[in-house]
Every structure is written in C-alpha cells, then in structure tokens.
C-alpha cells in the first residue's frame, strides 16, 4: 500500500503520522508552500484524506482530487467534511466515535466543577503567593444542580450518567424526543435553558445547530446560568457570549472550543467565572492512540476491500 497517496490536512498526532508514513505515501498538506499548485501536480496520486476537527475535506478540496476514495477523520465531528459532496461522488467517510466518548464526557464534568467551584481560580490564587490564613471565597455547589444537555447522543448520554452520580437532575433537548429515555425533554433550547442551571452543548455541528446558543438562549439562562461547550465553537454566538459574561448577564462558562481556534476572545482572560481550554476534549494519550488506530484501521480496511470499521458515508 506504499504507493497509495494519503493527504494529511494538518498536524494532529505524531503517532498517527508515523503509522501513515509506514503504510502509505504520506503528504503533509501544511508543509506545502503553494497548496493549489501542489494539488494540481498531485491530483492523481491522492486517494485518501485524513482530517480532524480543524481541517477536513471541503467541496473545493474534493473537486481538486479526482482519485479521492476515502476521507478518514481523526475526530467524531464531521463539520469540516462536505458529506453531501462525498455521497455524490461515492467517497467513503469515517470518523472516530466511541473511543473518545468518555474523555469528552469526563472533561464536560470537569469543566462544570472547575467553573462552579472556581478550581482554576483557586490554583491561580495559591500560586500567586497571596493566600493568607482566614481567606475564603464562597463558591457554587455542584451536587444537585440541574443539568440540561443539548444533544443526547453518545457523549450527551455519558455526561448524563456522570452528572447523575452527583444527584443532578437531567433534562435535554434533541431533534426528536427519545421516549425510552427517562430524562425530561424540552422541545426547544430556550425552554431547556430556562429550566436548568448548567447547559451543555453536546450535539454535532450542522447548518441547523450553528449558533444554537444565541442571545435568546443566553437571556433564558440568566445571571446564574453556566454554559459548557465541548461541541464546536460555532455552536455559540461568541460575541454574544462574551458580552453576556463581561456584563455578568450570564453566570459563567466552561469552554473547550471557540469559533476561531486558537484565537480566544481576550475579554475573557480577566474573568474569574470562566474556564478556557485549548480544545483538549479527547486529548489524552490513551484516547488519541485509539483514535489514530481507528483512522489507520479504516484506511487499511478500505484499501484491502474489507468492511470499514466506523463508516459515516
């Protein structure tokens, strides 16, 4: 398979790069000085694209690669891939579901605890050397808080299961109600927001869910509401969120994703009621390895004409 050309969209994992290099002819898109001339000269050699949450295969790239057979994403999210175009051209698409579910759910709960109990703020305080005997700051109890989940898929369910162990009542919004689920369903995000203390975004990013957290939802959450985003930056109208936090119309936020990564609105840097993470939802050694193995496994399966491990298209 060493002659099969695989285009890696951006740096994502050195183990994955090594493994791809061993098995295929690997092209690192980010090292190419002129992308369009590279595509023009290599269009007949590239049969696979490996993307991730940051870069995938849009219509333009797909059109530029007539021999493209498969797009394997090093992520579970597919928002950077033009799925309709892939379907149209018979291009297979795979992602990395399940292996990262637990890490993302763990981090969602971690963010809730960090925001409510001001963990990062406390750590900053101790490291500043300012801690004196008798100092204390009241923070917000987490146990028993109402958690509202947008999107009750694998990750949403894993978050619910963990939050339940903290006696948190769970409610959710989803495209359709799930009758077999015992959690309370709300038919709109605004209603969900109005009836929970902590709102978590755990749905895929699509045209419909773009800016699903908007001014109206933020208003419904209120000055004690806390937003947790472990989905995608564009789920949230970021400028609206920033002004709500700065003006204290919203109680707090735990954010792992942003509209224009790695750029994070600097107005947030001075706030003590937000926790800002550099998109680390699946960022553990164990999980990234498992994700890389899935990408390799899917590519090998495809080129050996075996069934794909985790096909989406």
């Amino acid at each position, binding site marked *: 398979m060493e002659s099969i050309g695989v285009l890696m969209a951006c*740096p994502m994992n050195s183990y994955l790069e090594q493994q791809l290099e061993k098995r295929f002819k690997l092209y690192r898109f980010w090292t190419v000085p002129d992308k369009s001339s590279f595509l023009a000269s290599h269009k007949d050699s590239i049969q696979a694209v490996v993307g991730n949450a940051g870069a995938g295969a849009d219509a333009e790239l797909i059109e530029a690669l007539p021999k493209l057979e498969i797009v394997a994403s090093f992520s579970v999210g597919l928002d950077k891939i033009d799925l309709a175009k892939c379907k149209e051209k018979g291009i297979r698409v795979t992602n990395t579901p399940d292996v990262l579910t637990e890490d993302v759910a763990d981090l969602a709960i971690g963010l809730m*605890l960090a925001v409510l109990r001001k963990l990062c703020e406390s750590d900053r305080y101790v*490291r500043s050397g300012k801690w004196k005997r008798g100092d204390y700051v009241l923070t917000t109890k987490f146990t028993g808080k109402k958690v509202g989940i947008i999107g009750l898929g694998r990750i949403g369910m894993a978050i619910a299961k963990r939050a339940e162990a903290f006696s948190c009542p769970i409610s959710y919004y989803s495209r359709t109600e799930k009758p077999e689920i015992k959690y309370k369903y709300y038919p709109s995000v605004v209603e969900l927001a109005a009836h929970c203390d902590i709102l978590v975004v755990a749905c895929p990013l699509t045209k419909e869910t773009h800016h699903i957290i908007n001014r109206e939802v933020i208003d419904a959450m209120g000055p004690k509401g806390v937003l947790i985003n472990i989905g995608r930056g564009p789920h949230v109208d970021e400028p609206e969120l920033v002004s709500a936090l700065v003006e204290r119309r919203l109680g707090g936020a735990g954010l792992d994703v942003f509209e224009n990564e790695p750029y994070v609105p600097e107005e947030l840097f001075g706030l003590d009621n937000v926790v800002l993470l550099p998109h680390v939802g699946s*960022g*553990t050694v164990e999980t990234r390895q498992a994700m890389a193995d899935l990408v390799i496994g899917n590519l090998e399966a495809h080129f050996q004409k075996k069934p794909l491990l985790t096909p989406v298209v």
Partner: protein
Amino acid sequence: MDSQPFLAKTFPPLLVLRSPSVPPFFFFKSQLQAHFHLLDPLDSSEPTHSFLSRHAPSVLALLCVGATPISSETLSLLPSLKLVVASSAGFDHIDLQECRRRGITVTTAGQAFSEDVADFAVGLLIDVLRRMSAGDRYVRSGSWVTKGEYPLGAKLSGKRIGIVGLGRIGSEVAKRLVAFGCSIAYCSRKEKPLVPYAYHSTVDELAKKSDALILCSSLTKETHHMIDHGVMEALGKEGVIVNVGRGGLVDEKELVKFLVQGQIGGAGLDVYEDEPLVPQELFAMENVVLAPHASVYTPESSTALQELVIGNLKAFFSNEPLLSAAQLE
C-alpha cells in the same frame, strides 16, 4: 428574631472558642445569638485564662469554631463541660482522648460538608489528569496561538481509584467515580462489610493496586504521614494523589521530592502541612493543582453546618438525642 440583652440572659450559655484567623464561614454569630447566650473571650478585654475560670461553673457546652485548638489544658479550666460542638469536617485539633476520659461528648459536622468536599476531590482529580488549570493558563497566556497544541493529558474513565478512608466523604467520592467507569478500592481502619468496593488492609497495598489515591481520612497519630516514601513508590510514576483530608496525612517534603524528580504522576492538593504555606517548588509544576483549603466553602455547606451546630446544641439543652455525636474510641 433579635436577641435583646434581657432575653439573652435566659438563653443557655455557650462558650465560643475561636482563633482570630479562622474564616468567618465557621462562626455564624447572629444565628447563634438567636438561641444562646454567647460567652466569647475574644469579645472581652479579660485574658482568656481568667475569662474561662470566671465563667467555668456555668459552661456546659463549648462551640469550637473551625480548627481552633481545644487542648487538655483548656478543658481542665472547664470542670462542668459536657459537650464540645465541632464545626469543621476534621477534629484533629480537639484533644479527643481527654474528652473521652472526662465523658465529654463531641459532635461532628456530620454530613454537612460531605457532598461539597467529594465534588471538590473529583474536580481536583479531573484537573490533574486532564490539565484543566494548566490548560486554562496556557490559553490566557496566549500560548495556544504561539506554541500550538497543548500536550496530552491522562484519561480518567476506567482508572483504578484507591480511597484512603471510606467515611462519609470517601463514600461520596466513590459513588461519583463509579459513574466514570472507575474501579474503587479502599483502605480504612476496619473493613466495611456492606460496601461493594475491594478492601486493602494497608495503604501500601492499596497504592500498589491504584492509579490514583484520594485522601479522605481524618488526621490522627496513626494516620500522620501515612502517605510516605513507600506509598508513593508503590503508587508509581503515573500515580496521582488528591488530598482533601489534612496536610499532615502526607509527608509533604517527600511528596515534593517525588514530584520534582518526576517519580509520581501528579497531585491535587487542598490541604498542606503548614497552611497557608505551600512548598514553592509546586508553583512551577503543570501536573499539580493547588487549592487554598477551600473544599467546604459553599452557601449550602454553610447553611447545613449552621443547622447542624444549632440543632445539636438545642438538642443538648433540651435533653434530646444529639444529631451527630462522634464515636470516641
């Protein structure tokens, strides 16, 4: 209900002992004044020793505010004392042996703090493994832009958790981590029969079989420095220690050495041997999360504590069963 001086004299007298540095969280003066006539040496210009001696005959109950030490010397000035009401999660600052000898009942903070401390412990564990505080610093310093992707953390779900001290707090921690797919084992003075977790009779044994140790036990002569060189070695290079108990449970100098030398995976600490002093070597570490003994500070814990303290005192003065009497062995 304002207590007027006239009525106050008919309330039962309550001796209040508090160090000036104890956070006001533990001393809810107006709520107490609604039910009791407070005798507080800090409100008097008289030296404490003579204040205590003068009031001693009428003092049946004493409120120990926060971690104010109650020594056998203090107790010896109070021959009529029958009850010590503790208002913090731990009571290693109270001479329990002397209380037992004198037949003085001690009441604890019961369940008032358990959930908040357990939440905090889980938060610290996730923070250390997933580098939340370090990641937040990374973003705020602009490093995500200039340096790129943040280094990978370690997975929590499915890890083996060793709980040191399966009391009220330890049990709440266990219950939470089970939902993360973690396996729970514990060590305790005695094995607990109805508990679904694996028991180890020593901390060393527990450490050998754990990826992380969560310290939830009280500080006694026996548990002092129980997390020592041997335990840290047994826990191993990837091991994590979370301490929401007392600083004295850990040989702090040894822990710092292990961390500096990379012989242990990380630590989440809410308590230290000599608060508020924190070993400076820890400030530069990405695998350490530091909190200022803050695990109980929520409005709910404050309310629960007040209700419990006042409830115990009212029960005592009405000759009714106490709400949270400690079993003094």
